């Protein structure tokens, strides 16, 4: 029996919570030039750190499914399976991968320090960009250079803010998620 076969009820509910929080993150808009910050990927990062890789990834699958069934929870109020299969859908798959990556890296240390958290978050964000830009190139046939201009540059400043906020939040919330630490 694999570990994912017996996810405890509590971690299921926490995954549902973080799926919903990620969705809510799309409605929280903080003004910034040139692209305003929305908070989905902040909660993706938190899910990875606090819930661990498998439950964290599960929470992001829940988030993507919420969008697929028609709730406007993707960035800017988008919804539907069309977004997932369209040019920007890779970022959504990236969220799932990011939670996995962040969870894995954070769990490598028993007591991850701030630097280790930031390293994990940077790796997670790279996973989002990697999948997002790959799908952007595959669906739109843009050149890599063009894809980087529309798929990476506008989001960088906002993501740096979110990364800092996520590390700060994770340090404060870590003590409330004991089960995340003992799960392997």
């Amino acid at each position: 029996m694999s570990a994912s076969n017996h996810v405890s009820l509590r971690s299921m509910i926490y995954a549902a919570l973080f799926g919903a929080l990620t969705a809510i993150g799309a409605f929280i808009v903080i003004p910034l030039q040139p692209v305003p910050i929305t908070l989905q990927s902040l909660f993706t990062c938190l899910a990875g750190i606090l819930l661990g890789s498998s439950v964290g990834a599960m929470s992001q699958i829940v988030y993507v499914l919420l969008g697929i069934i028609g709730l406007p929870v993707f960035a800017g109020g988008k919804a539907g399976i069309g977004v997932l299969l369209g040019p920007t859908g890779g970022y959504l798959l990236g969220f799932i991968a990011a939670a996995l990556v962040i969870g894995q890296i954070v769990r490598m240390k028993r007591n991850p320090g701030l630097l280790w958290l930031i390293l994990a978050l940077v790796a997670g964000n790279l996973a989002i960009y990697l999948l997002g830009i790959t799908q952007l190139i595959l669906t739109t046939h843009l050149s890599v250079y063009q894809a980087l201009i529309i798929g990476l540059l506008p989001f960088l400043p906002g993501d740096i803010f979110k990364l800092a906020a996520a590390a700060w939040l994770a340090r404060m919330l870590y003590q409330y998620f004991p089960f995340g630490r003992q799960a392997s």
Partner: protein
Amino acid sequence: MYNPYQYVPGSSLVHKLDPRTKIITVIAFSLVIMQVKLISLLAAAAFIVLCSQLSRIPAARLLNTLRPVMPFFIFLFIIYIFFTAGTPLISLGPVQITSEGLAMGVLQVGKFILLVLAASVLTISTSATTLTMGLERLLRPINKLGGSSYDIAMMVTLALRFLPTLLEEMNNINEAQLSRNSNLSSLGLKGKIRSIVYLSLPLTLNFLRCCDELADAMEARCYRHGVRTFLYELHLTPMDYYLIIMVIITTVLCLIYL
């Protein structure tokens, strides 16, 4: 008040179809549309118009779902028409619009718009709960791979229930902070990070308690993993089988010949 649901109740043919049929159709449509040329784009558009007419969805409601995606699509269109090499059509100083670029832009952006519209027909004609059930049935094969489609359906249902409460909680926190003179928009760089933290921290912490109570309540009522049954089971009608087979044949033919 913000209404997160796109669903418009109705009794049309499309409304009555099994959610699985509709999900399969949308996925097949998106596979086909990624292959089409400029001329078959019209056929695809005609298909969407037909579906929306059959489902008696108000056109304004359907087109409304395009609003959030438009800024990105317009940006993409501009990239296409200005940065595609080919025979120049119009020259505007240093930049020029090429005919290849224009064709490419119309084709690609048209594809994405149709993709979003197809998905919108699905979500407008099917309630979130029914769609969750449909997805659960389609995900059943993962049960054999060690996952659990029942758990996923349960989590999506829980998240659906959490959403309105979370929104309300967020508004409460926001108003509480506003009444104490916090102004998120006028802060500097460090203040912006702080404002993110001050909003998400109470939101998460307040909800952890709810989650623990919910877990206890469900355990007290003997919720357990494994095969689950539903109050309303989904049934595929002969019509659904017929449509699914048609869709699969059409998709395969399109993928081979387009």
